[in-house]
């Protein structure tokens, strides 16, 4: 059995791996695979890529960008010993931060498969990845939110109403980001100008984004639209990215163009990922969905992004069947991203065709808060009226901040203090 098969069979049960035909057939086979995986030296993952070097640019990226010096402190360990080390007192933030470039996505995925929920929480809580543009996201004791004011027809007043409602609840310190209905550049530009006007008018220390395809955002940028962050959905194989209509060269170009605008810091990219996207594009090469997901983080970290979040329950029950599978996947993605050095957030969410409900989301939300998640989404009443799924609400973020004594990004916190009436009174529309 090669590493690719072993990783798949050692994966905790989920519908997507069953759909792909790569999952363990029995519960015992799964645990036996975990036992074998625990014995595999980490070094083996460098020798044996799960997708061939010749046929996949993400594999080439992973191999060519591996930092052997950073890897040295753990290079003698097996996967099982790596888990023990991560959970030990030796694995501190000071040691984990420089380790990140030495860890490959496959190593992160492998060790996560041996971890229980509490392991994923505590190990992730020791990794920190703070990034900044106009606000600083991911500092200790902070929880930020992406304000997601989507509207079913991209109506500008409708979008503005949700922005203002969110700001009243202290939402939006990670980004104010709209998913547009249509991908045409005129509409994308109009939304960008609206968000920028609101941000400028109230001098809000945050950034804006319209989550259209990268080519559309580039066109808007060339037309002079105010582009703070460039967004793109990404996946862990070259073929899956092709199904999104992107490749590394396009992302390179977009990242450079956004940095040249010098509107904030060097962190100008915003990526979304999610288990199952490679399989849904029939581009998984027999690799399990959680390993594919971790490989997407190799793409993300090439660009030192401001924000990365897994949209964990969006894809549907054929990949993550129920609340239990969504919960575990969210924690795996957060842990793997953090171990690889990324500023991970999570869209804690589910669709109406999944076997999940608000109770499941509350559990995942709380666990992610304990794990030190950088940001979550803020959707009015948790109900996205454009994308038709349930995410987390403005209220949910306040719940988490108050339950765990977390604060928003420092710049945003100061801004809220300068506007004491904000959290209590609805704003007037601009």
């Amino acid at each position, binding site marked *: 059995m090669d590493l690719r098969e072993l990783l798949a069979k050692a994966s905790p049960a989920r*519908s997507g791996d069953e*759909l792909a035909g790569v999952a363990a057939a029995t519960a015992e086979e799964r645990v036996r695979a975990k036992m074998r995986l625990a014995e595999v030296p980490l070094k083996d993952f460098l020798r044996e890529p799960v997708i061939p070097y010749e046929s996949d640019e993400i594999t080439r990226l992973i191999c060519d960008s591996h930092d052997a010096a950073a890897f040295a402190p753990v290079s003698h360990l097996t996967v099982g010993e790596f888990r023990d080390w991560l959970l030990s007192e030796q694995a501190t933030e000071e040691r984990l931060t420089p380790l990140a470039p030495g860890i490959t996505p496959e190593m992160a995925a492998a060790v996560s498969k041996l971890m229980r929920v509490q392991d994923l929480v505590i190990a992730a809580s020791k990794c920190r990845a703070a990034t900044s543009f106009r606000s600083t996201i991911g500092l200790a004791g902070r929880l930020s939110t992406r304000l997601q004011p*989507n*509207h*079913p*027809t991209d*109506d500008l*007043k*409708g*979008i*503005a*109403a*949700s922005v*203002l*409602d969110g700001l009243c*609840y202290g939402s939006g310190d990670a980004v104010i980001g709209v998913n547009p*209905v*249509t*991908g*045409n*550049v*005129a509409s994308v530009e109009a939304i960008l100008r609206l968000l920028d006007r609101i941000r400028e008018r109230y001098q809000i220390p945050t950034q804006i984004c319209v989550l259209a*395809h990268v*080519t559309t955002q580039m066109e808007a940028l060339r037309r002079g639209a105010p582009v703070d962050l460039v967004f793109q959905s990404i996946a862990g194989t070259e073929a899956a990215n*092709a*199904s*999104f*209509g992107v490749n590394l060269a396009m992302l390179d170009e977009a990242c450079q163009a956004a940095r040249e605008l010098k509107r904030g810091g060097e962190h100008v990219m915003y990526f979304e990922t999610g288990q199952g996207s490679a399989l*849904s*594009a029939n581009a998984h090469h027999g690799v399990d969905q959680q390993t594919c997901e971790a490989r997407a983080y190799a793409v993300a970290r090439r660009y030192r992004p401001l924000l990365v979040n897994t949209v964990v329950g969006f894809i*549907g*029950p*054929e990949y993550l*069947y129920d609340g239990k599978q969504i919960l575990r996947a969210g924690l795996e993605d957060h842990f793997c991203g953090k171990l690889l050095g990324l500023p991970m957030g999570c869209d804690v969410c589910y*669709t*109406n*065709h999944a076997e999940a*409900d*608000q109770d499941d989301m509350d559990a995942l939300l709380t666990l992610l808060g304990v794990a030190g998640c950088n940001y979550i989404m803020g*959707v*009015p*009443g*948790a*109900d*996205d*009226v*454009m*994308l*038709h*799924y*349930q995410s987390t*609400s403005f*209220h949910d973020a*306040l*719940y988490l901040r*108050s339950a765990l004594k977390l604060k928003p990004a420092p710049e945003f916190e100061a801004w809220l203090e300068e506007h004491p009436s904000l959290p209590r*009174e*609805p704003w*007037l*529309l601009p």
Partner: protein
Amino acid sequence: MELDLRTFTPARVAIGRTGNSLPTSELLRFELDHARARDAVYRELEPGWPPVPHIALHSAARDRSTYLRRPDLGRKLSEESKARLEPGDYGAALVIADGLSALAVQRHALPLLEELQALLAADHCRLAPLSVAAQGRVAVGDEIGERLGARSVVVLIGERPGFSSPDSLGAYITWDPHPGRTDAERNCVSNIRAEGLGYGAAARLIHFLLSEARRQKLSGVQLRIHALGALPR
């Protein structure tokens, strides 16, 4: 002066709070909407619908629970259905698939088709017979379009039910349909319903994208849309 934000958006804005939590009435309203959306997912196309000439097809997914777990089967035609499609020479094929909301399809597909067919008739575009695929996903249109010998396919499909919209319809335009097309090779017009994009506007947008696809001989993210001023709203 205070404005009621709720007049600007169907989103759940200005819903109040008790402490940092939802008021009871909002909590229960949310639960009711979730319950309704769950019921919509499991609803099936009514027998005998639609009441217009069509080729009735079925995907390879036997029933709803298979459909939910096996998207690969929802993208293929059943063996019996394959035999019902006669190859011809068409400019476009129109396909209705239930997707995740048979309710959306039953409410909006026919009025939208009426508008779209009128626009296509003015172009002298030769249309394949209408087909209706039960337990179908977007990509089922690739196989249907190829078997019919159509140069493009428009799939009208029920989108994932949302709370305020258990009946939202989507339209996917694919040039040169054949199995293996990826989502990046399609253009999409979504959220077609009474409170969203109206039939006339949606039909004009679909027609525009289809015309551009025909002119440029491709669809999806590679489709270049220059005539922005001419883009129908």
